[in-house]
């Protein structure tokens, strides 16, 4: 049983234990957001229940190209900041190809956060085996704070979705999720993800989602 805390709640008197979602003042640790308190002997942290996505290094994100410049692309990654994908970070770039023929405004990509400078200028890279331009499939948006729940404990939830429905799923840390596969199965996966988002803080969710998917599959007449 874990406790929900609000901004300003005193959660510890040991400043050395202060983890994410907390701040220290006069040797006392306070929560700085609305979240779930996660406390053990050597660390206290607050897992936020809501809030915008703040990029961190090596996050895989799903983004949408907003602008094409002479040196790269400006990408919207559903955070307070636009990200930049330099042309040299896109392996598809060839000297005789124009940048807007490779990626144009409105195109979606899977990219990785390569660098964040102190002014929160974000650089992306696509030089990774996970990274690809998205040319088909479906993108859905969820609350970024719920992303860990969609992935599940050691990826259990995402494995369940993939194995039960045999669809491709990439969960961006920014709350955008790319789905690809049989359209009926993708629709079930989408529903399941929204259900996970809604019931993120309830127990036994993985089992219930498994049951939900099996029920929807038999409703839609898809053989198991």
């Amino acid at each position: 049983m874990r406790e929900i805390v609000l901004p300003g709640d005193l959660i510890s008197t040991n400043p050395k234990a202060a983890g994410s979602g907390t701040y220290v003042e006069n040797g006392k640790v306070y929560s700085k957001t609305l979240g779930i308190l996660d406390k053990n002997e050597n660390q206290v942290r607050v897992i936020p229940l809501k809030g915008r996505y703040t990029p961190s290094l090596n996050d895989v994100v799903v983004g949408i190209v907003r602008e094409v410049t002479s040196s790269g692309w400006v990408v919207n990654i559903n955070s307070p900041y636009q990200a930049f994908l330099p042309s040299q970070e896109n392996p598809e770039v060839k000297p005789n190809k124009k940048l807007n023929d490779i990626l144009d405004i409105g195109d979606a990509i899977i990219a990785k956060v390569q660098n964040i400078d102190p002014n929160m200028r974000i650089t992306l890279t696509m030089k990774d085996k996970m990274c690809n331009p998205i040319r088909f499939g479906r993108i859905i948006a969820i609350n970024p704070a719920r992303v860990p729940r969609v992935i599940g404990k050691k990826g259990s939830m995402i494995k369940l979705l993939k194995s039960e429905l045999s669809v491709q799923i990439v969960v961006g840390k920014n709350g955008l999720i790319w789905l690809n596969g049989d359209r009926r199965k993708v629709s079930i996966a989408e529903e399941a993800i929204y259900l996970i988002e809604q019931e993120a803080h309830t127990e036994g969710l993985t089992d219930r989602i498994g049951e939900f998917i099996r029920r929807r599959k038999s409703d839609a007449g898809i053989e198991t």
Partner: protein
Amino acid sequence: MPESRPEKLIIDGKRLDGRKFDELRPIKIEVDVLKRADGSCYLEMGKNKVVAAVYGPREVHPRHLQDPSKAIIRYRYNMAPFSVEERKRPGPDRRSIEISKVSKEAFEAVIMKELFPRSAIDIFVEVLQADAGSRTACINAASVALVDAGVPMKGILTSVAVAKVDGQLVLDPMKEEDNYGEADMPFAFLIRNSKIESIALIQMDGQMTKEEIKMALELAKKGAMEIYKLQREAIMKRYVTEEGIEVEEVNTDA
């Protein structure tokens, strides 16, 4: 139809609406009422009805307003034309611009703006029905909406006014007391860990003696603690599911 001043504002040690001197008007708070806002809140404080919406942190437009070291906070207090008895001309006026400014400054002390350089946090509060003390109602609603939006803050702002009517200090004045009283003093407190930490906003209209101001502060503190409890309850109610808050271990890395 402008009413004339009631003969007495205090009758037999009670106020016009039957409240005691240190009693608040009934308060109702609902969290997460707007689908497209990051955080929102509907609040009733007596006859005041207000809606607050929070967006952000998000990109700043126009670009020249952005600050490379911290987030900017924009607060808009607006009264609907139908919120008062005589139709109010729509749009910002001298009064609402002032309220927006002072409320914004109160929130700047609470929100951790340094965490989001080059971004903006927008707070919009609409007064749907106004009685007295709509700015305090708006601040209360806005701080609940900010918590709901997951904006990092040092604590929670809670606001309440104290008025002086017929020589008596009263908490949370209603319209008659505000219009015909001798003085009106809205406060906003930063509450951290269920304790009043500091004053984020204080204004005064009319005159009070030094002793009265001290007493008013004590009265306001008491009222603010009651409101804080209601704010807290409202947020908890929204996020605690009926089965309790059992949470499985979640994995933060993919």
